[in-house]
């Protein structure tokens, strides 16, 4: 029952539309739109609560209890914060490039939304089942770079500029090890379809067969979404808040929430690629598949937050050095080793 909750809802909707006499093409389109809107709402609300989760995690790690005044256990805290931010003016600096400045926060949620459309949340729960799913996901993930750059450049502020320069440098150089680390998985599966990648993990998660790849992927992904220890982009003790320095009100809130959306994305991707997606481990299938997916995703999100509240920030040259000198060679070696392993396994007829 719970297992097929969402697919049943979708089926119900389809039947409803069918019985209303809607032609099949329109039926599909409507359903897709509904799915996308559902995903958007999911991302937004999730980002909202993730902010709260972060604050709670931070609080608990710092011997305090975090927000607890608004709503039960402070559950409505970030909702109120966003309400406050919406009601605020967005100050536009005089010398800013107004179009870029305003466009950046408006666009910042587009890549996460588009990525989530391709991620299978559970058994048969994927809005867009693409053949090149993985490729699509990575291509869109790198789009964020441009949006941050737009914000940083448009602000016409030296701190923002420095921050957005760092964004570009960081994202470009960490994209490479991230994709290379996934290459091993693609080699094993032989497909870039995310559903097939999950299916290939039926017997064994790729975190077991590709542990180094997982490590590299995770590190690079943390860097990709600008989280400590790679949060140089906003490194608040150095460049105030990087590209968002000049933003206030909802503009700031959008960037802020987008950060959590991107944490969700990398966690969802890591779950899909390495942790078996919605597959239930140890045959615990009584828990619905989508719940497994979210469970794994939130564990990873917690780990990312755990990192943030433990580690100091790395320096910009060290970041580059780490990316290019350690992660890239390591991921290349991983691809190489995977190739050899596959060759040997095939040779012995596994």
């Amino acid at each position, binding site marked *: 029952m719970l297992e097929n909750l969402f697919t049943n809802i979708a089926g119900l909707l389809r039947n409803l539309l069918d019985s209303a006499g809607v032609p099949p093409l329109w039926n599909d389109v409507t359903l897709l739109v509904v799915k996308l809107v559902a995903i958007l709402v999911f991302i937004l609300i999730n980002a909202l609560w993730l902010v709260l989760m972060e604050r709670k995690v*931070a609080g608990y*790690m*710092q*011997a*305090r209890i975090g927000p607890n005044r608004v709503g039960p256990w402070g559950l409505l805290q970030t909702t109120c914060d966003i309400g406050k931010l919406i009601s605020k003016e967005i100050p536009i600096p005089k010398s800013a490039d107004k179009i870029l400045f305003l466009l950046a926060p408006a666009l910042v949620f587009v890549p996460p939304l588009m990525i989530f459309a391709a991620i299978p949340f559970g058994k048969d729960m994927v809005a867009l089942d693409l053949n090149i799913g993985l490729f699509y996901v990575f291509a869109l993930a790198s789009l964020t770079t441009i949006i941050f750059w737009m914000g940083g450049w448009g602000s016409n502020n*030296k*701190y923002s500029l*420095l921050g957005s320069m760092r964004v570009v440098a960081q994202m470009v150089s960490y994209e490479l090890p991230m994709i290379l680390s996934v290459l091993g998985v693609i080699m094993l599966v032989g497909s870039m379809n995310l559903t097939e990648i999950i299916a290939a993990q039926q017997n064994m998660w790729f975190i077991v067969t590709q542990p180094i790849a997982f490590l590299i992927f995770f590190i690079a992904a943390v860097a990709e979404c600008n989280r*400590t*220890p790679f*949060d*140089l982009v906003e*490194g*608040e*003790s*150095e*460049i*105030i808040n990087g590209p968002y320095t000049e933003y206030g009100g909802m503009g700031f809130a959008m960037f802020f929430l987008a950060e959590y959306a991107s944490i969700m994305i990398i966690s969802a991707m890591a779950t899909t690629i390495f942790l078996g997606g919605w597959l239930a481990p140890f045959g615990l299938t009584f828990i619905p598949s989508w719940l497994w997916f979210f469970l794994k995703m939130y564990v990873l999100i917690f780990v990312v937050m755990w990192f943030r*509240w*433990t*580690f*100091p*920030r*790395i*320096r*910009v*040259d*060290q970041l580059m050095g780490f990316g290019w000198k350690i992660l890239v060679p390591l991921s290349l070696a991983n691809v190489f080793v995977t190739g050899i392993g596959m060759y040997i396994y095939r040779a012995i007829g596994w």
Partner: protein
Amino acid sequence: MLRTETYTMNFGPQHPATHGVFQVVLTLDGEKIVKAEPVCGYLHRGIEKLAESRTYQQVIPYTDRMDYLASMLQNWGYVMAVEKLMGLEVPERAEYLRVISGELSRLASHVLATGVYALDVGGFTGFLLCFRERERMMDLLEELTGSRMTFSYARFGGVADDAPEGWLEKLDKLMDDMPGYIDEYDGLITGNEIFQARTKQVGGLSPETAIDYSLSGPVLRGSGINYDLRKAKPYSIYDRFDFEVPVGKNGDCFDRYFCRVREMRQSVRIIKQAIEQIKEIDGPIKGKVPKALKPPKGDAYAEIESSKGILGFYVVSDGTNKPHRVHVRRPSFINLGYLDEMSRGWLIADLVAILGSIDIVLGEVDC
């Protein structure tokens, strides 16, 4: 043809990493610092001038406002200078109370410096965990003096109040817990590889330059100079305690930071010994001091080792009840004098690390 240009950027006065209102005008080449011109004075209140229109006693609360993180030591320094001027004797119990409260204040200041340094390089948790212990210390100091930060505890020829009932036991308990807390900082901050990567080999300072530029405190000792006034020129009763002076090797940011962490352990040692010894000493906490204080004509310079470095008070008396001149040798101010040279060639992120390792308090820099 590629042409690059340097540009200037204001680092502060409103900036999260300047520990207050302090400005550095940076000339940058990309992210690399070509020149860093410190601009201070945003918090200048003219305490030296104010002191001239106050009586000797009335200056004490003003000294609190300089290094507000270790104001006990500031009180002590000023009081010592006036005592030297007048040739006052301090009763033994008062000396012990001064040492205990002063070391506790130093501990509180160092704990804060450690935490803030963690924050400067991006580790927020270390910062707040340090505050947890500082809170306990401040509670104790509040119990002793009535205030949490600006104590005004020292008096000429003694201290304001005796330790309340059970205070020493509470302090002893905190000192028992303290090594465990410091281990926690070591695990969370000092031992962290990212932290070490950020601070080791950064902002190096040779012992010769450190001496030449009159740097003091952990900044000087981090460069390997064993010069701590508590050992070099034991004032008060510091010759009765057994402690070591931690020194660094390379004079980089890490050494300066680590000196502070090790100094905390020594402070704990001193306090433990002092608690042990004060139990046997009973007596007045204030010497015989006339109510209307009129030191003889002359001047005196007394210095103590504050948490930031050598804190000196130069007091000139003209025979009236108000000081003719009070000058404070503020360690933060003088330690800051070498910032420009120290940060040249490093990145912005390193400037934050360097500034944090000097451990300035703007109330003291600007006085």
